[in-house]
Each structure stands twice: as C-alpha cells, then as structure tokens.
C-alpha cells in the first residue's frame, strides 16, 4: 500500500469515527425518548381506561375522596378530593374509585398501589363484603415491607369507606385467588373493615326482598347493590333463597370461610 492510500484510509477512518461520535449520542437520545414515549402511552392507556370507567355523562359529578401517601408525614395517607362522575351503582362506583386510585396521584412518588396493577373485578356480597380482585402485579410490584403493604391496603379500604357506603369490609384477592400476604408481610387472608356503621337498606315496597344480588360480572353492572335513588325491584322473597343466581360467600372467588375482620 502506497503512502497515499494509507493517508486516504486513515482519513476515511477518522471521518467514520467522527460521524459515529456525533451520531451515537443522537441515536441514544432517540432510543431513550422512544422508551419514554412508550411508557407514557402505557400510563395514558391505563388512565384512559380508568377515565372510560369513570366518565359517564349520565351520572352527576361528585367530589370523591381518594387516599394516597402523604407528602408531609412519612407512612401516612392523605385524602385528595377529585371530582368524578361516579355511578350510583355500588359495584360500578367501587370500580371507578379503585381504578382512579390505581391511576395514581399527580405526584407518582405518592402512589400507594403499583402502576402496573389492574383491578380485574369487584364483587359485593349481600352482607356488605366487597371483594376486590387485583392482577398479580399488586403482589409482585408493591414494595415489600409492613409500612408499604399496609398503606396499600389502607388506601383501598379508606377510599371505599369515603365513597361507597354499602361496602362494610373488603377482601383482597390476587388474580382470583386468596393470597396469604400482599408482598410478604400484610395478611390478606381476612377482610379489612371499611364502613363500621352498617349500611341501612332503604325502605322497599312491600313484597320486595332485601338485596339479593346476582354474581357481578367483571364488566360490572349486574349484581350490584344499589343506592337509594335507583333501587330496582328485586324478586319476591322466595326467589332470594341461597341458590342459583345468588352470590354467597361460599360461591365467591377464593376461600371465604370465617374471614377474620381487621381494622385497616
């Protein structure tokens, strides 16, 4: 190789290295930006899902109280008032507030539930026991520890307490199954107290049985207890016997024998 070719080769390599030095940081920035955009779109999709559940033009907008971590006191929760068009159906209303809770506060640091957790279903038994079935991520992504797990549970219980008076206690399932603990510490085998005052079933026309809900499908409306203004006529007392179409603790997901109730 002549010296002329050698110079040309070195010059070519130098140009290539310079180009790479300029191009790689730009490429890196682009990749980072794309990842961020994807993350944002996932978060946005989740929020839109929650919004879709929450947004019901037919329902009046009410001030809902959501409980997230306090930025003033370590290990404590604080109520944040959010105006939402909440359903008067207890099951749908529970789903709406829990989905909003999952969507998280403006400051992500104050989350109590992991962003990738999803509420799969919510059931309400005739005795006021709410059953909240969350995806696996609630157990795998909640930070392990008594304080973080108890805050997660408390935020669920207190949010239901503030917004859904029909729910007396709540049971948390993970993917339809009973879990011994949330993330290694807090006991999920029992129920957590929500509203200590029993929900007074509104007066009904003679011959109408107390609420005898049917199993609530994941999408929601059927089988829910109703608020006073929209109480629907229910079947005659004879039809309210435990049997087909009645959700009893024995039929609910997971084992529900003698749940021990605990104050959150």
């Amino acid at each position: 190789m002549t010296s002329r070719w050698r110079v040309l080769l070195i010059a070519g390599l130098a140009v290539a290295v310079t180009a790479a030095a300029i191009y790689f940081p730009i490429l890196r920035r682009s990749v980072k930006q794309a990842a961020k955009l994807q993350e944002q779109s996932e978060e946005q999709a989740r929020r839109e899902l929650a919004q879709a559940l929450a947004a019901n033009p037919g329902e009046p907008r009410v001030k809902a109280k959501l409980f997230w971590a306090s930025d003033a006191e370590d290990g404590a929760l604080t109520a944040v008032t959010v105006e939402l068009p909440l359903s008067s159906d207890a099951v749908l209303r529970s789903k709406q507030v829990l989905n909003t809770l999952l969507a998280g506060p403006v400051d992500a640091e104050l989350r109590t539930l992991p962003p990738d957790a999803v509420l799969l279903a919510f059931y309400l038994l005739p005795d006021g026991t709410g059953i909240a079935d969350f995806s696996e991520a609630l157990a795998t992504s909640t930070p392990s520890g008594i304080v973080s797990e108890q805050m997660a549970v408390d935020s669920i219980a207190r949010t239901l307490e503030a917004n859904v008076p029909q729910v007396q206690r709540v049971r948390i399932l993970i993917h339809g199954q009973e879990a011994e603990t949330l993330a290694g510490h807090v006991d999920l085998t029992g129920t957590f107290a929500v509203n200590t005052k029993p929900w007074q079933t509104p007066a009904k026309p003679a011959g109408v049985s107390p609420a005898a809900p049917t199993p609530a499908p994941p999408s929601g409306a059927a089988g829910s207890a109703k608020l006073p203004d929209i109480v629907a006529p229910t079947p005659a007392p004879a039809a309210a016997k435990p049997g087909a179409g009645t959700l009893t603790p024995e039929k609910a997901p997971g084992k529900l024998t003698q749940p021990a109730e605990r104050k959150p």
Partner: protein
Amino acid sequence: MLLDVRNPIRNVAQNGFLTGAVMVFAVFAGAAFTPSSQAPAQSQTSQAPAQQVAPSPQGATPQGATAQAPAALSQRANLNIVVVDPAHGGTDAGARGTGGIRESEVVLDFAAQVQRALETQGFQVVQTRRGNENPSFDDRSAIANAQRGGIFVTLHVSSTGLPSTARVYVNADLPSAPDASGLIPWGRAQGPFLGLSRKLGDLVQGQLAQRFKGSPSVAQTAAVRQLRTTAAPAIAVEVSSISVDDRAELDRMAPGVADAIARGVAAFKPTYIVANAAGAQP
C-alpha cells in the same frame, strides 16, 4: 381433632395447621405447663447453642412438658423467654435494595445483636432461625407458642420510609372469643394478647423514638401475618430502609435497635404476669 395438652406442638402438627384451620390451645394463653417446663425451653435457647431450634413443628416436641399438677395452678411465672424472629430467609430474601442488600441477611445480623442485648438484661432467647432457612409463618409461631410465658419479636427492614427510623407494629383487632370448647382458633391466636402486645409495642417504640429521630412515639397497628398466629405478646419491629446506598447505614442502627428492644422488654416484664391456670386468658 386430637388435642394433647402435654404437647401443643405435636397437636398442631398432627392436626395440620400448615394447611389451614387448626386450633391452638387456650392453654397457650395460660401456659398449662408446670414451672419445670422451662427446662425444655432452655434447651432451645441461646444458653444451649449446641441444640438447634427445630424450624418445623414436626419433631419440635418440648420434651418434659407435662400436664399441670394441681398444686402448680396457683403459681405464677414471670416473663423470661424472648423469641426473636429474623424474618424471611432461604429463597425468600424479603425486601431487596438496589445495591443488592437483602432483608433476610440484614435481619439475621440484627437478631444476633438483639439476642446479646436481651441476654445482658437477663432474658433467655430463642431464635426462629440461625441460618439462611425459611421456616413458614406457622412454624415460627409454633416455636413461640411452645414457650411458656414468652414474648415474640419479629424483625424486618422496609422497602420505603424515612431512612434511619424504626417502627413497631402490633396486630390489628382480631375477634378473640374462643369457641364453645374453650379453644382459641390457631388463626386468631393473637387475639387474647392484643392488649399486652400493644403495651409491649409502645414501650419498645418509645425506646426507639429516643434513639432514632423521626420514628413514631407509639406503636402502629397493621395486619402483620406473622403476629396473627402467635399466642403471646408479639410485636414486629421494622427498620427503614433497604433502599440505602450503603448497608453500613443499616448496620449502624443495629446496636440502637437491639438496646431499645432489650430495654423495652425489660420495662414490660413487671407488667406481664403469666397465669398458670389452664385456659386462663392474659
């Protein structure tokens, strides 16, 4: 379901508490053993280190535990055994820090220091694990429930929270009424002890608050799984947090945590009189 008053651990093992609903004796609350039953307890304590504490109820028979002689019914014994539980272990690392810190390893080191501090105060100590094994929640409770007049302290490190603080937790309310046969369900064994646990928790938390600024002044309430099946005054101590960059920050807390627990337990001792009468509630 067969219940042998002389051998509570065998009872729970034979009746399969690992699978769920099992009854724990009301006599756990009243400790239906003669004072001489402290001898087997000693065999599991640090004073006889050569003898391994059985992590499983199978085979963990408290030898020498006998039915109570009538003459002993009126006798009372004071607290002298503390069961220290380093949480997690084995495949369960517990909380994990970004720097590779594992809760299961940190609490094992804490437990060793807590043991020394308690022994200095004159207590016998039983640890639920001494190595990297992971007894089940029920196995750990069974070890505590086999001790007459003992108390239970489980040690944890949180994932979150203000660094260099420590919190004490006691169980939330549990329905404690024994069933018609006078037995306490295994799953609610902590129920009758909640008041004592709260007292112990407040005393230890008070000591911790003096040493670690930012810690609460009284014990907190939480549905801690480990405490629910423990038939003794029982607390969980959780140190913040595993998210520190350097494990040395946690290690520096260990002597203070150990001393606070030992002093809290010592302050609790005069208030905890263990009734010998079978079935007696605390």
